[in-house]
């Protein structure tokens, strides 16, 4: 009997309404785990170049991993993937909460959707079975309404819902996938893929425990975390992910006014600490996690923020706060509620609004374009109005719903310089002029600018922490970009890729040896950290081959021009990313990964990872370049 997985991947054809299953062998699960590995595998095999991300031939993949659903901290997460309508490249996002665990306990390892339905539907998965049900009555409803209606209809409060929101229905390229109402796979516009397929939701109810090889070992690890999490995550529990916001501003690295500045005078007003003091009413959590880093906030008039939608993360306080010059905490909390109710990526939305604010202040757009909105930095009401317009694709919001890159191209007049994006994906709230390795990571990420599978250089300036387990023994400055930093970046990207194949929360302070121990205890495979890292590296290479085939090579591994220019003021005045050092670091990364100087995985590297089959999926010019 298998442990950690069911050997069952559900195939749903939305065009003709048929549902089937695939039963991959054990080797498949051991090589890819689930999550990113599984998504990259299916996209590479089934989504050829030329596929319309919003057409029926795209796939939409829902994938927990081999360790999901077993009760230990971080095990409730879930991955979603598709060819991204935002980046036109590999698209993936993860959400926390309970949905991933529930889906797994409903008896499936993943669901792969293809085709498109003629009318709105949702998939209900329970006890290893699935059925497509009519969702016409859910279309046009907020995420909160949908969750309530589905639970009522199925007569079960315990069903877990992943859904696309109104923004997804409207095929906004900033549309997120929402699960459990307060958890979001925000990036890459994946909600729009659901909307295009008329797939309103996936609903799961699971009653079967995931089989575990060594229950004692897993219980012991789970108990260790319950007893030790507060030694390194008390601040995360108390003040949430925004506990470091004031520090970033003080250092000069808090993205402010569309990345023109790194220091925000209103930082204290929108910090995690202030949120705790003023509007926090509870802390929420994910499946089996004792850390409870999620916020629940409530306010009175004028915004009346509904606690049902949780509360803002650091990324949201940055993107809809400092990045828009807004220091009104309650307004940012309202923007967060609106994004959650409509199913929008708060990062993409905040960065796109900040982009429009800079365009407005420089006269590239006027009140005539914005429908009378004075779209200036610091105008909280304007920010809120734009969130609503983007979700509903109303007026100027219709343009912004395309994301800042496409909006800039439409506006013209040099607006491109104000779109802070990499591979068309908006840059999250981490500043490359503070964290220089992270800037290189933005360029290399398969999903466009991303902070989750990246390095945070400031964590290695005084001590190396767990990186010692990779043989990195010396701390190094945050602005250093030599080969030692690239090595650390590479290990970080591989480790976090492995996390995204396991689909485990990266905030939970598991030690390196624990992670392999969890895989071993759950699956029964004799497992090491080496094998875990190889799973992560394998998945990165599959995403790389996919992106090369989509036309994304070294020339597309770019960084927004703004980061090569110095800050004019603040604690990091004069700091910029050194273009030559950045370029050299990129090539060093390629070489360390066993890729050519043009960023193409060599046949030997693909064979070394046991994915020689992927050579055939490289485009002809890349195959030549790699000597295949």
């Amino acid at each position, binding site marked *: 009997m298998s442990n950690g997985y069911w050997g069952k991947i559900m195939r749903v054809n939305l065009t003709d309404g048929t549902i089937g299953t695939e039963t991959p062998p054990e080797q498949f699960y051991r090589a890819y785990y689930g999550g990113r590995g599984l998504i990259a595998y299916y996209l590479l095999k089934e989504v050829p170049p030329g596929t319309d991300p919003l057409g029926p031939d795209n796939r939409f993949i829902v994938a927990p991993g081999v360790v999901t659903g077993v009760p230990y901290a971080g095990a409730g997460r879930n991955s979603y993937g598709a060819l991204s309508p935002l980046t036109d490249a590999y698209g993936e996002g993860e959400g926390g909460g309970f949905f991933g665990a529930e889906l797994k306990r409903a008896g499936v390892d993943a669901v792969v959707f293809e085709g498109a339905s003629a009318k709105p539907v949702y998939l209900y998965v329970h006890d290893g079975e699935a059925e497509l049900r009519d969702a016409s009555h859910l279309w046009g409803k907020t995420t909160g309404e949908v969750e309530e209606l589905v639970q009522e209809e199925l007569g079960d409060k315990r069903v877990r819902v992943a859904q696309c929101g109104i923004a997804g229905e409207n095929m906004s390229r900033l549309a997120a996938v929402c699960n459990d109402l307060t958890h979001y796979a925000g990036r890459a516009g994946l909600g729009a893929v659901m909307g295009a397929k008329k797939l309103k939701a996936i609903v799961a109810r699971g009653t079967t425990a995931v089989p575990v090889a060594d229950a004692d070992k897993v219980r012991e690890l789970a108990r260790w975390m319950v007893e030790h999490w507060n030694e390194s995550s008390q601040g995360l529990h108390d003040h949430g*992910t925004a506990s*470091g916001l004031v520090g970033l501003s003080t*250092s000069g690295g808090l993205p402010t006014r569309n990345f023109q500045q790194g220091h925000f005078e209103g930082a204290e007003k929108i910090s995690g*600490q202030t949120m705790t003091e003023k509007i926090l009413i509870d802390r929420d959590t994910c499946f089996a996690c004792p850390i409870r880093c999620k916020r629940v906030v409530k306010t009175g008039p004028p915004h009346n923020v509904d606690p049902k939608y949780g509360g803002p993360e*650091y990324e949201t306080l940055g993107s809809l706060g400092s990045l828009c010059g807004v220091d009104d905490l309650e307004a940012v909390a309202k923007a967060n509620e609106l994004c959650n109710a409509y199913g929008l990526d708060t990062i993409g939305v905040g960065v796109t609004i900040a982009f429009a604010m800079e365009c407005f202040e420089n006269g590239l757009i006027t009140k005539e374009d914005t429908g009378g909105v004075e779209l200036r930095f610091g105008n909280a009401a304007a920010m809120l109005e734009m969130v609503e317009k983007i979700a509903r694709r109303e007026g100027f919001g219709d343009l912004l719903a395309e994301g800042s890159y496409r909006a800039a191209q439409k506006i013209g007049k040099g607006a491109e310089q104000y779109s802070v994006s990499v591979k068309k994906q908006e840059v999250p709230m981490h500043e490359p002029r503070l964290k220089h390795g992270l800037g290189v990571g933005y360029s290399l990420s398969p999903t466009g600018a991303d902070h989750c599978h990246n390095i*945070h250089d400031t964590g290695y300036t*005084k001590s190396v922490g767990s990186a010692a387990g990779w043989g990195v023994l010396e701390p190094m400055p945050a602005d250093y970009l030599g080969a030692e930093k690239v090595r650390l970046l590479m290990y970080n990207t591989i480790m976090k890729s492995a996390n995204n194949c396991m689909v485990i929360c990266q905030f939970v302070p598991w030690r390196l040896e624990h992670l392999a121990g969890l895989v071993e205890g759950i699956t029964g495979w004799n497992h090491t950290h080496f094998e875990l890292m190889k799973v992560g590296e394998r998945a990165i290479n599959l995403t790389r081959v996919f992106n090369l085939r989509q036309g994304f090579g070294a020339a597309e591994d770019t960084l927004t021009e703004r980061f090569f220019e110095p800050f004019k003021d603040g*604690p990091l005045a004069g700091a910029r990313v050194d273009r030559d050092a950045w370029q050299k670091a990129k090539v060093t990364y390629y070489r360390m990964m066993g890729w050519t100087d043009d960023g193409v995985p060599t046949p030997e590297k693909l064979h070394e990872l046991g994915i020689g089959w992927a050579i055939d999926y490289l485009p002809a010019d890349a195959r030549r370049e790699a000597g295949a």
Partner: protein
Amino acid sequence: MALSSRAGSGQESQESVRVRLFGELVRFAAGRGYEFEWPLATGQTVADILAAIGIPEAEVWMVAINGTKVPGTTQPRAGDQLMVFSPVGGG
């Protein structure tokens, strides 16, 4: 929490700084919480104060006085706000 002194009040027997801990440093505060007064001795530097509280140097990303980043050799003045930050990834 009782505040032992504030700058300029002139009533306290000892001068102090206001310490504010950010991120994950609270575990070194021996139950004092995220914010507390700390007595200031003549000539004491920021590094001296952190060592006296028991915060290991390797755990500190950055220190600021009244919102401005400073090196560990800085000597704070009575009533200053000493902000101490641990590195955080954010999410």
